[in-house]
């Protein structure tokens, strides 16, 4: 089906996934309201199911998008395999959230329909954020994604940490989005438009590159994105927010939100400013190095596993920034591939942390992992797989992903950056292995640890994540092509704009 943006109605088709998801969100809202009214009792167990249904429906719609073809590329919403790919990722992350959060939500008395509504809406925001082609819409998408997450972070109102984390996250988020917005303004001033395609065109025609507006604008945009993906030095909110937030939300933030931020980051910088790679490659490189090294070093001394994983997610942002710095199709493909692996292993590890932490998130220190693997082999094994994958060890997706990124970077000739990546991941070995050695090498603490039990959904989520990681490690071929398509879809765009 051909899409021609001259008529606004066409956007109905282009944004079908978003629309489906929003509709479901509102349905859930209504269901919840009518079922609960004003009484303080947990929502019905139907809500999560409904959410998953919504996600699946959106996924189907997303799949259907592949059939669409656009004329020209000036529309506000991109219509390419890249968007579809990333959409799937967000939806999957959402599904994982629902699967792992179930028991936790009961224990913390958080079973509220709004929670799921917010998750769905924030996924809508991500889709817009990563899928749009107009800076203004991207900004709104950013807010659309962030505001629900602010709320989710602070949703556990009994917990001081939760509120504090939320407030910090919110204030700094608004702060950075102000920069982001100013960046848009400057770009607007410099290029006379906020449509990435047109910007790229303007850059290619060389009318704007002379001025300083675009470079400064790029820098400000990078600040905004850097904040969302938690790149050093814009990362300082991350450990606090991650620690404060309820663990499932943390997992959601660490995977979906970060993924969306990166997806948009790449889209904007590769398609919009692809012509000015020379201007922003240094930004990417500097951020990448600072992020990889800084985060890994700090994680070395982190005794709180939740925080440790927060730093580790920052470090991984650094690796992804290397893919951005590569700035080529390979880089984009490596980025997409790594994003999938990253989502799997991060969700998985946070899920395990959630199980171990127990009611009220009391057991977050390394000590509570002593002998875990022998008490609960399943958890031990899957956690080990996640850790190995995070550390980038062969036979796990993490390794292939890192190699892919290395490949992209070396293809661009960034040898030193590659070496930095390697050394950084070497640092990371230490703290990942440390968890492993607590789990395997130590004797269990002899205290009344309530036997850890897993809900079926959670178990499945873990099995799924593990299987995915191993599969991607052993036979990455299954995903490589998809990633390659996504990347080419993205890059073709910037190419076609030139012809425009």
């Amino acid at each position: 089906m051909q899409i021609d943006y001259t008529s606004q109605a066409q956007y109905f088709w282009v944004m079908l996934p978003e629309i489906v998801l929003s509709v479901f969100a509102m349905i859930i809202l209504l269901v919840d309201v009518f079922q609960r009214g004003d009484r303080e009792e947990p929502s019905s167990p139907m809500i999560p199911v409904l959410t998953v249904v919504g996600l699946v429906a959106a996924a189907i719609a997303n799949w259907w998008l592949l059939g669409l073809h656009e004329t020209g590329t000036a529309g506000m919403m991109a219509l390419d395999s890249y968007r579809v790919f990333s959409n799937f990722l967000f939806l999957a992350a959402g599904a994982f959230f629902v699967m792992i959060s179930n028991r936790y939500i009961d224990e913390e008395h958080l079973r509220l329909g709004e929670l799921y509504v917010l998750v769905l809406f924030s996924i809508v925001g991500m889709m817009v954020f990563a899928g749009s082609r107009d800076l203004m819409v991207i900004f709104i998408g950013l807010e659309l994604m962030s505001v629900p997450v602010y709320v989710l972070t602070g949703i556990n109102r009994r917990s001081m940490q939760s509120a504090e984390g939320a407030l910090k996250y919110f204030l700094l988020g608004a702060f950075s989005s102000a920069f982001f917005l100013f960046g848009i303004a400057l770009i607007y001033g410099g290029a006379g438009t906020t449509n990435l395609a047109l910007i790229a065109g303007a850059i290619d025609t060389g009318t704007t590159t002379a001025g300083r507006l675009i470079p400064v604008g790029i820098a400000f945009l990078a600040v905004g994105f850097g904040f969302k993906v938690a790149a050093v030095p814009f990362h300082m909110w991350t450990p606090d927010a991650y620690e404060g937030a309820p663990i499932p939300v943390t997992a959601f933030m660490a995977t979906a939100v970060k993924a969306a931020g990166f997806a948009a980051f790449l889209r904007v910088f590769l398609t919009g400013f692809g012509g000015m790679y020379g201007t922003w490659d240094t930004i990417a490189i500097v951020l990448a190095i600072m992020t990889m090294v800084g985060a890994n070093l700090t994680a070395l001394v982190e005794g709180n596993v939740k925080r440790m994983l927060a730093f580790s997610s920052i470090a991984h942002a650094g690796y992804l920034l290397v893919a951005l710095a590569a700035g080529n199709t390979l880089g984009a493909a490596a980025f997409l591939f790594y994003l999938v692996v990253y989502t799997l292993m991060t969700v998985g590890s946070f899920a395990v942390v959630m199980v171990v932490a127990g009611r009220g998130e009391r057991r977050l220190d390394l000590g509570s992992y002593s002998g875990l693997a022998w008490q609960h082999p399943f958890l031990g094994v899957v956690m080990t797989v996640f850790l190995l994958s995070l550390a980038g060890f062969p036979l796990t997706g993490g390794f292939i992903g890192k190699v892919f990124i290395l490949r992209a970077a070396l293809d661009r000739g960034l040898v030193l950056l590659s070496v930095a990546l390697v050394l950084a991941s070497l640092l990371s070995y230490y703290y990942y292995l440390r968890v492993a050695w607590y789990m395997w090498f130590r004797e269990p603490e002899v205290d009344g640890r309530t036997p850890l039990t897993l809900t079926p959904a959670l178990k499945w989520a873990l099995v799924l994540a593990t299987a995915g990681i191993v599969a991607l490690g052993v036979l990455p071929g299954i995903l490589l092509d998809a990633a390659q398509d996504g990347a080419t879809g993205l890059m073709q765009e910037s190419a076609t704009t030139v012809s425009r």
Partner: protein
Amino acid sequence: MHGFEPTLLWAIAVLPLLGFLINGIAAYRSPTAKIIPTIVGPGVVALAFIIALINFLGMRGAELHEPIIQTYWQWMPVGSLSINAAFQLDQLSILMVLIITGIGSLIHLFSVGYMQEDPGYARYFAYLNLFVFFMLILVLGSSYPLMFVGWEGVGLCSYLLIGFWFKDKEKADAGKKAFIVNRIGDFGFLVAMFMVFSRIGALDFATVFAAAPTAFVYGGAVVTAITLFFFLGAAGKSAQIPLYIWLPDAMAGPTPVSALIHAATMVTAGVYLVARSSVLFALSPTTMIVVAGIGALTALFAATIGLVQNDIKKVLAYSTVSQLGYMFIGVGVGSYTAGVFHLMTHAFFKALLFMGAGAVIHSMHHAYHATRSHADAQDMRNMGGLKKHMKITWITMWIATLAISGVWPFAGFFSKDEIIWQAASRAVGPFAPWFRVYWVMALIAAMLTAFYMTRLMIMTFHGENRTGAKEREHLHEAPLVMTVPLMVLAFLSVVGGWINVPHAIKSLPVLGWIPSSEWLHEWLHPVTGGADEILTSNVGAVSEVGPFGGHEGFWALASFAIATLVIVATAVILKKRAYAAAEKSPEPRGFAKVLYNKWYVDEIYDAAIVRPLMGLSRGLWRVVDQGLIDGAVNGVGYASRAFGWVGSRMQTGQLNTYAFAVAFGVLLLLAVVLI
């Protein structure tokens, strides 16, 4: 070309190996097994001796000019290097084989009696057989590496046998010391082999010796280096200065072992090596001077120590070192026959001496054991007047003493005199100054030998007995199984010398009637001929007159006279002297003390080498390994953790800090894009 085929050559070596296995299994089943070892132990060696004898007789018939080489399998075929597991049968090796198996079987027999009560009886014979096996490999091996197998194999066996009574720390230490010191020599042997290979591209005797004269320039640096390294090996094995220190301690082993390994066979391997490589050694005058010099020095030096020792075996040990020195003078000055000759005769009388001493110790030990006394059974000060208790031992040992002192007509006279004379007569050309000195040293050493041997005899058998009143009646002659070997060896010590009577003897006034046959010389000619040619062609003919004039005969007579004189004198003097038993006798004083403590050489080595090395090792471990290297490794870890700590402290939890960081980042990025 030669009408002789060796019979069962392999069996000579394999039989003892078989014995080792059988005895080993016997020992494994029951350590105190008696019957099997008693039969197998001596049996296999005797069999080997018989086979060797057959071959020997066969060789006498055939006129052999080249060695017979029997290849069994390819051992190390690597690139241009090809080493076979092959035996080489020639005049020299068969001679050695005869000595080893012959004396070996005698000593095995002797051991049957000597080790009768020992709990490790079977193990003992297993070791002994293994030793014979390796010794045979050493002498039969057709290439240096194969020889090296035997070379280290015998070292191993001596290690095991010295430490046979391993419960006693001193004995175990002695074994260890022997092995390590020998290893120093082996290092030389290895390097020499490498050099030979890199020069000639082969390591088997035939090729090497054939190529040597052309491959090396006479007196060249390479051949000198090679031979010197070989000699280092020889010095280690044959206990020459500076590596002799292990041999005296080696007396810790059972006495028959001392007789077999540390007197008759193993220690002479060095001499064999030099004789075997005569072609190489002849090519390097420097080496010859060194070898002979070391020999002379050792002969003299060891003799001086032997003068004052009270432990009967110690005396014999130093005398062995001294006699080995003689042999090296012989092979050093280029008269390989003389060296081998003395090797043979020495094997006879020194084995005899040791076994005699063994017999004495045996009965002394019994005496003390019977009376629960803890006095030292080996200390001559506790002996004296034993001749009335053990006649055969007494007589046979006197024979040996006369032989070693070089009294005509005993074996030692011919061989030792030959060496002394050769030193004199070959002092020509470049050697002139050196060999004269060695000759003098040899003469002095000869006198000392005569002295300390007589002293030994007097202290042991003559004078009145100092063993102790109630011990006395327990003293008795050794059993037949031990005395028979004594008598056989005594016979050999008498006649052994007659196989190589120098022609010069004719010129003597009194002894002119003696049939002179330089049989050994001619027998070994196929082996040493090459060396002789090289020497004659490069150094010139040997001189007919010794220093200060005088022909060989004259000097022979002179040395005989001197030896006899010394013996008589010593006997007369010491007869009157009354010794005190060990615990009552005073500490030696003055120079005697220095000699008694062996010139403090062990102490010097300990202070100069052993302790520093240990200290250095400890230092390296603690400082370098754990300090520097590991420190660096761990340091990296600590450093990164420190950085991480700093990073984590930046997470102050204060929003302003975070906002500040963001602002900083903004400036950073602005700087990147604007500058």
